[in-house]
């Protein structure tokens, strides 16, 4: 069985996000970029499944500009067997990404597709679900535990839902999106970084995959959230009541 893992290159989790002055998006020039943390967890889970003998190959896929190769190298250094880089300089929304992943799945025929439940840059939480729908596969989102039964060709997935855990059985092939508590991703060790250098990364374009990249969504403006006003110290209960009544209008 092959496992396909989608990894996204995003502004590093620890970097303070700045909106571009022209409000067209988020500043990414001269900003540290890393693998989306949820994608890291997805990749880790795929690697563990392979190490447990349930899969033969883990393929990491990234879609975006040329620097996505760095993100793929990180994935290969963690242990993925090969990479696919779909190179594009446009920034795509989830539906386009899902279409690209679907057409890759048609070529590669994986038994499982792992994705992070969302990317920390746009917080869309849509791609995994869309891929499953386009492929007509079952989906298990927000996974916090994944157990495979190879004989029955079934994955048992615990998913984090409001108020507790839900356990699903999904027939393979399936799409699984990963939540924070699923695992703790490994570090890229020196011997693995060395091995990763000789692992192949296949370059493709959107045209190669014959995907319609027309988007129905137009981003009008990206703005920072309003700044929180600084608090005031009140000197008496009366003053507090007065402010609550006349300024905050809450009592």
């Amino acid at each position, binding site marked *: 069985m092959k496992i396909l893992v989608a990894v996204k290159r995003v502004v*590093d*989790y*620890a*970097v*303070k996000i700045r909106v571009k002055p022209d409000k067209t998006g988020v500043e990414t020039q*001269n*900003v*540290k970029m*890393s*693998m989306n*943390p949820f994608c890291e967890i997805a990749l880790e889970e795929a690697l563990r499944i392979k190490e447990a003998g349930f899969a033969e190959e883990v393929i990491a896929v990234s879609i975006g500009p040329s620097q996505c190769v*760095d993100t793929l190298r*990180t994935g290969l*250094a963690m242990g993925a067997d090969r990479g696919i880089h779909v190179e594009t300089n446009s920034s795509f929304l989830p539906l386009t990404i899902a279409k690209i992943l679907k057409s890759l799945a048609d070529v590669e025929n994986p038994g499982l597709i792992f994705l992070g439940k969302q990317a920390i840059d746009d917080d869309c939480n849509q791609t995994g679900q869309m891929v499953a729908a386009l492929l007509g596969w079952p989906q298990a989102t927000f996974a916090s535990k994944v157990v495979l039964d190879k004989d029955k060709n079934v994955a048992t997935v615990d998913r984090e839902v409001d108020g507790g855990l839900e356990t699903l059985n999904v027939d393979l092939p399936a799409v699984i999106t990963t939540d924070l508590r699923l695992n*703790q991703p490994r*570090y*890229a*060790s*020196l*011997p693995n*970084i*060395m091995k990763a250098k000789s692992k192949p990364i296949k370059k493709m374009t959107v045209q190669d995959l014959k995907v319609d990249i027309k988007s129905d969504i137009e981003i009008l403006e990206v703005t920072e959230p309003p700044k929180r006003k600084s608090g005031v110290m009140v000197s008496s209960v009366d003053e507090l009541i007065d402010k609550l009544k006349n300024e905050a209008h809450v009592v």
Partner: protein
Amino acid sequence: MMMQKLRRSGELIRFGCKSLFTSRPNKNLVSRSVSGFVNHYKSKGKLFELSDGNYNTELHHPCISRNLGMLLQQYKCFGSSAASKIQRNPLFSSLDSRDVSYFKEILGEKNVIEDKERLETANTDWMHKYKGSSKLMLLPKNTQEVSQILQYCDSRRLAVVPQGGNTGLVGGSVPVFDEVIINVGLMNKVLAFDEVSGVLVCEAGCILENLATFLDTKGFIMPLDLGAKGSCHIGGNVSTNAGGLRLIRYGSLHGTVLGLEAVTANGNVLDMLGTLRKDNTGYDLKHLFIGSEGSLGIVTKVSILTQPKLSSVNLAFIACKDYLSCQKLLVEAKRNLGEILSAFEFLDNNSMDLVLNHLDGVRNPVSCSENFYILIETTGSDETNDREKLEAFLLKSLEKGLVSDGVIAQDINQASSFWRIREGITEALQKAGAVYKYDLSLPVEEIYNIVNDLRGKLGDLANVMGYGHLGDGNLHLNISAAEYNDKLLGLIEPYVYEWTSKHRGSISAEHGLGVMKANEIFYSKSPETVALMASIKKLLDPKGILNPYKVLPHSLFSH
């Protein structure tokens, strides 16, 4: 307003007269103590023996001390033999209600702290090892107020202790007895920042991390970074000449501090707040205030050269099987990563185990347990280039066998978790029980020998750990035990100091001498040098009110 001024000058006259009277016995003291010092250093070796002898008697009978019959206050603290013998200087006045009302008049009610709880915190150091009994903490808002406070304290002969974030490790920032605490925490404004030269001018009470955050928005970084950054003040950093993690790249504060403003004991404000990189006009007096631990004056403003924030920072966590490999790796790193190398830190396996056992959520980044771990950080301007360089260097070292395993941080989160191990050692030591801390500068090849020697000497009595800034030849030697005990201390001191002295090391690389090592200065400085230091102290602080009992040996100021 006029009335107030009059009253104030009246007070000054009153206490000015007093100080005239007190200055006479003081003069006698000067000559006495200096001659005492001459005797002291002439028979230096012998004196040490003597004090050892004293020490041993105290060791067997900790309650029976020579001075029991005397009605003098004695200072007792954990983990340091030297400090337990200090007596309060009887020439210092004691605080009275008039003093408090005077301070309230110049500072305002709310900045004169008599509250027990707040004083308790200010009297105790971060490790709870040193504890004073001050009855008063003052919070000046500007240089003028610091000057007024000192002028008054000098005239009244009230001893003071300057305090910043109180994160020191040698008891330098807390009172020994009842010294008035002058905390500069309210002086926390950034005064100017020049985006062309990168020179930052700020008040002494600015918290290091806040300055770093401020500079971050301008695209610059502070030239120093240390574990205590969330609490320590820049004034304290300068006064103690703090080293930290970036010294290997940006040099010590003697290089990066371009100017400062300090107030001397008599309230004189010395404006040395230059912002020039080059200024050869006369003696460069600012250096006297860098690292003198508040014993010559209180630093009130600092101008410091900051560095542009470079976009590419990479961090590797490496395992090495022996100390020799660590040394070789340092040499190779300097040669191969020279222009981008920004930190080279090491810790031994004992330190790693301690962190893993005492801190939550920490894991060993490398899969196997090794004897030594090294953090190598590079900072440069080209992410791809720097990363390839670091990878190539490490892979070469792996092939050569210098490195047995290692990981490279793939994102900032991973980098923080690696730093957490190195920076968390102090915290883990604190949780593990009693800790004896030594901060030594040694030739790099000798650094780990002292750890091994001490381990052999102490056996099962305690856990000996070595970590620190290998790139700067600075070892943090820490001895962790279940509880403080005199027998253990007797085995460690003066052994560690003698060992260091024998190898021409320094017994205080970056922590300072404080109260813990004031008497041990001779292990690293010649008697002639210390004598000159004492004359400088006398010149700038004739009555000795600034941070007394610290930095210089007590024998110089015996009463």
